[in-house]
Each structure stands twice: as structure tokens, then as C-alpha cells.
């Protein structure tokens, strides 16, 4: 097959970003006239293969091996390399998940073939795909191309393609094997855990007041808390605020925190790095206040104010309190 889409498991299902990469693969396959198939591996390969076979794909490869039952960078990079050697695809597609970030660079080094990461779009020009990626923390966009001959490894940013765009169909399942040896796997993983179980649930909030680096210092947090109370919303933050220890990580929005889609997302002093945006892009109304007119968050905002949040927040709080009284 020409396009191999590598799927990953999340709670017994194909990871959402895997479905998105099926949509991407189908599109690339249509536009370039290439065949596409999927690869599933790991402890639940049977279940994932059944799910993947319900999409319009040439075929679904499944690899079952005791050494792949739990994830390891050593095991997964070697297994996918062997499958690529067997199948010789030109493009190998992935969702840009944390697991992919952990092992696919190893795979790239093993193959000595480039890994074009975290793309937000793809288009075909003169028979060659051009990949679009954000750079400089989303302040600039870049079109990137692969050189030489494949296989080329390509990952897509969360929501770059809609999983609803993945076309249903019926694909045959083929079992494939890899040669692994226990000594190859030099790491030992413990079970995943959640740090603050039962913490703050931001996913059901209608109104979220979210603060970023622009809040300046910890002493300014109460300003945002007051505004949040006045609006009757939940307080959230981008990563720098959590990294600085100003708010617990349970308040973090983004790829390593929670994903939300409230009626109002008020972004205060947040620049809009990719890792944050993937967690709030689906909000119904995004209102941004930031002193930097070039902050990338304005591009996804419904309302934007270029201004000083420390000056505007107290006045806004006051106006809301006055209205509610």
C-alpha cells in the first residue's frame, strides 16, 4: 500500500486523532490516486482492527505480539519499522499524539527518513504534497516539503482533519508479524495514573475565564478570580501559569490539560500556543484581551481587544457586578 495510517488505542477505541488521520489518509489517497491502509498493533489489536475495518481503506494490518502488549518506544519503533520495510509505503501517517511524539522520532532515525510533524493542513501541488505547520509558537505558518524518496513519516495536529470526515466502508483484515526480542525493550512502564483525580471539571462549564502569562505575577490572580465570580464562570489557565505554580494543574487547558467548549471562553493574556489552542478551539465564543496585537489567539477569536488586561479586568468586573445588582 502507498499510504499506511498507524492507529493507536485510547480506552479500548481507536484514538480520536487516529480517526482524524484516517480522514487525512483518505483525502491524500483520493487526491494522489494512491492506495491507503491502516496498521494496528498492541494488546487490543483485534478490537482495533475490527473498528478500523469499518472505514473505506484498502486493508487493515494487525500485529499481535506479546512484546507490544504494553507501549514502549523501543518496541513500537522497531515493530513499525519492520512493517514499513515489509509494506514499503510512501507515506506513513499518524495523529500527533503524545505516544507518537515519544517513539516516531526513533522510527525516523531507524529509517533515516524525515518525520514531518504536527501538520495543520496538506495540499497537493504538481503531484507533491505540501504540508503546513505552525512555527514560532503559532505566530507564523510554514509550508514544508519532503525531499528524496519515501517512506515519509507525517503527523497531524489534533482537529486538523475532522474525524467525521472519515469515510465508512469495509476493509479486509490481514495479520502481519514482526520479529522482536525481549532484550530490545530496555524500558519498564508502570500503569498510568491521574495526579488530581476529582479536581476541577472545566468540561461542563458554560463560562470560562482563562489566564495566561500576561497576568504577570501571582499577586494579580485575584483580579481574574473576581471577574470569574462576577461572571459565574470557572477559572482556567494556560501552561505557563501552571508551570509558575500560580494555579494547580487541574485548571490547565490544552493538550496536557482539559479540552473545553464553553459558551464563552474569555482568554486573558494568553498568546495562543498550539498546545493551548487544541484544548479550547471549539468554544462557541472566544473573547481575547491581549496587549500583543500579533498574538496568534486573535486568529481564532470572535472578539478581540488589544489592551492591558490589568487595567480592563477590574473595570469589567465592576460593570458586571453593577449590572447583576
Amino acid at each position, binding site marked *: 500500500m502507498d499510504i499506511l495510517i498507524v492507529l493507536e488505542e485510547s480506552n479500548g477505541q481507536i484514538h480520536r486523532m487516529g480517526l482524524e488521520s484516517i480522514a487525512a489518509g483518505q483525502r491524500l489517497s483520493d487526491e494522489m490516486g494512491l492506495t491507503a491502509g491502516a496498521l494496528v498493533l498492541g494488546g487490543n489489536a483485534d478490537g482495533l482492527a475490527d473498528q478500523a475495518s469499518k472505514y473505506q481503506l484498502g486493508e487493515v494490518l494487525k500485529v499481535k505480539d506479546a512484546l507490544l502488549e504494553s507501549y514502549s518506544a523501543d518496541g513500537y519503533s522497531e515493530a513499525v519499522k519492520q512493517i514499513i520495510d515489509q509494506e514499503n509505503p510512501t507515506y506513513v501517517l499518524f495523529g500527533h499524539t503524545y505516544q507518537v511524539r*515519544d517513539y516516531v522520532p526513533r522510527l525516523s532515525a531507524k529509517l533515516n527518513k524525515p518525520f514531518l510533524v504536527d501538520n495543520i493542513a496538506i495540499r497537493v501541488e504538481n503531484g507533491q504534497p505540501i504540508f503546513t505547520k505552525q512555527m*514560532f509558537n503559532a505566530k507564523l505558518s510554514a509550508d514544508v516539503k519532503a525531499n528524496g524518496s519515501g517512506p515519509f513519516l507525517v503527523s497531524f495536529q489534533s482537529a486538523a482533519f475532522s474525524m467525521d470526515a472519515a469515510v465508512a466502508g469495509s476493509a479486509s483484515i490481514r495479520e502481519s508479524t514482526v520479529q522482536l526480542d525481549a532484550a530490545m525493550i530496555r524500558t519498564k512502564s508502570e500503569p498510568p495514573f491521574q495526579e488530581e483525580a476529582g479536581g476541577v471539571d472545566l468540561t461542563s462549564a458554560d463560562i470560562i475565564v482563562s489566564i495566561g502569562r500576561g497576568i504577570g505575577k501571582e499577586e494579580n490572580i485575584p483580579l481574574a478570580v473576581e471577574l470569574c465570580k462576577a461572571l459565574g464562570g470557572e477559572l482556567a489557565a494556560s501552561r505557563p501559569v501552571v508551570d509558575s505554580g500560580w494555579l494547580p494543574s487541574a485548571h490547565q487547558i490544552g493538550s496536557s490539560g482539559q479540552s473545553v467548549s464553553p459558551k464563552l471562553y474569555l482568554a486573558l493574556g494568553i498568546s495562543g500556543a498550539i498546545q493551548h489552542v487544541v484544548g479550547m478551539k471549539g468554544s*462557541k465564543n472566544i473573547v481575547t484581551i491581549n496587549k500583543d496585537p500579533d498574538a496568534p489567539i486573535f486568529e481564532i477569536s470572535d472578539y478581540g481587544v488589544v489592551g492591558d488586561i490589568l487595567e480592563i479586568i477590574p473595570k469589567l468586573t465592576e460593570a458586571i457586578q453593577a449590572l447583576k445588582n
Partner: protein
Amino acid sequence: MKIAVLIKQVPGAESPLQISSDQKWVDESAVAYVMNESDNYALEEALQIKEAHGEGEVVAVSLGPERVQKTVREALAKGADRAIHIKMDTVEAIDPLVTAGHFKNPLEEENFDLIFTGLQSDDLGMGQTGVILGEMLGMTTASLVMATEVSAGNIKVKRELEAGWFQWVSLSLPASITIQSGLNTPRYPSLKGIMGAKKKEIKVIEGEGTDAGQSMVKMYLPQSEKQTVMIEGSADQVVEKLMDAFRNNVNVL
């Protein structure tokens, strides 16, 4: 314990970014450079491991033109023992395989127990160099690390997974680890450190160009995905207009 920390010099969060005339990169003359944020955390973690063990060496390694020596000196001032500067002027080399390739030989000769890199750079954001280098040097690898525990021949790391999940992973040494921001509190250089840094060694190695597997076609300003209504005026006027939008358009008041 001998630890290499890969340090990248990148445009600061507040730096102006003008796209260069060939549209392949930014105009570097307008840029204010700083140490890449997650590299700063990686350096701090290495220094803390060395201090906790009471012995060892932390070596800052940086790739880039002459200007990166300023950032290298900053790493030395914070406590790195010495530095290696792989000198390379090409700015458009975006392929992490090429980048990691520059580090391979200089690091291989040194036989490091650990290589620390920041999770990703604030310019290219490829997030691959440390892991690729681990494979090239036959090391174990782990990414997005939020805590480390080093013991004889082994490192245990807390990996960040998605949506607030974590996992502890044990790796045999040597290991190449990519460090996530926020796992420690990076120190500021002391005056004594700044003075001492001037006497520390920076070994300069000339880098060599190689063919890249991926290259830049064009850089441009992102296209806005929405019609953003920009609200202007004094703080009072802005508040008035926001209140109007909250009440009549967003319907939250």
C-alpha cells in the same frame, strides 16, 4: 554522572518576528534571542541531579552561528561545567535528522550517561532531536518528562501523557530524555556564576552541511480562521462594548 544538555537559542516570546525577504525564515537582524524555554528547565534538572549526587559533570551543547555563544555563556553562568559549540551558519535547516546528526559524533566521543533536551524548540517546534539522537547513539529514550529519579545505571522518569495522565517509566542508562517545562524552578545566574563563566571552556567544532529530508517552502502569517470583531477605545469604552457583546451576542449576562 555525566550529563549533556542541548541548549537552543531561539527568538524570545516578546521578540519581533519579521518574515525574511526570501520567505524562508525570519529576519534575524530584528530578533531578540533567548535560551529556549524547555531547555532552561532541562539545564536546571541536570544541575540538580549533579548537585544531589555530589559529583559529575554538566556539559551545555549548542548548535548554531556565533551568536549562540551568548546563550551558552548563560548556561555556564547558571552552573554548567563546560560547553561545546557546534558552529553552523545555515538557518533554514529544519530537518531534525540533520540537526541530530550534527550532535551525534561530538556527543558519542564524550560517552554521556544522560542527554537532556527541552521537549521542543520555540521556533521550529519539531520536538524530535533528543529522541532521534537517542536512537542514533543506541540510548534509551523518553519524552515529555515531568520528574526524574536517577540511581545506579538507571533513570526513572515521570512521563506526561494526554489529558492530565502520567506514567512512571524506568530506563537503563545511557538515556536521552526530553524535558517538559514546569518540572522545576530554573535558577538565575549568580554574579559569581557570571564571573566564573568567563573562564569556563567552550569547545568549538565546525559543523558540516548534509542533505535534508525536509525543507521549507515558504513562511507566512497565519490566515485568520474567524472574522474577529476588534474592539477599540479607552479601557472604559472597551468594557462598555464587551458588556454589550456579552449581553446581546454571547448571551451570558
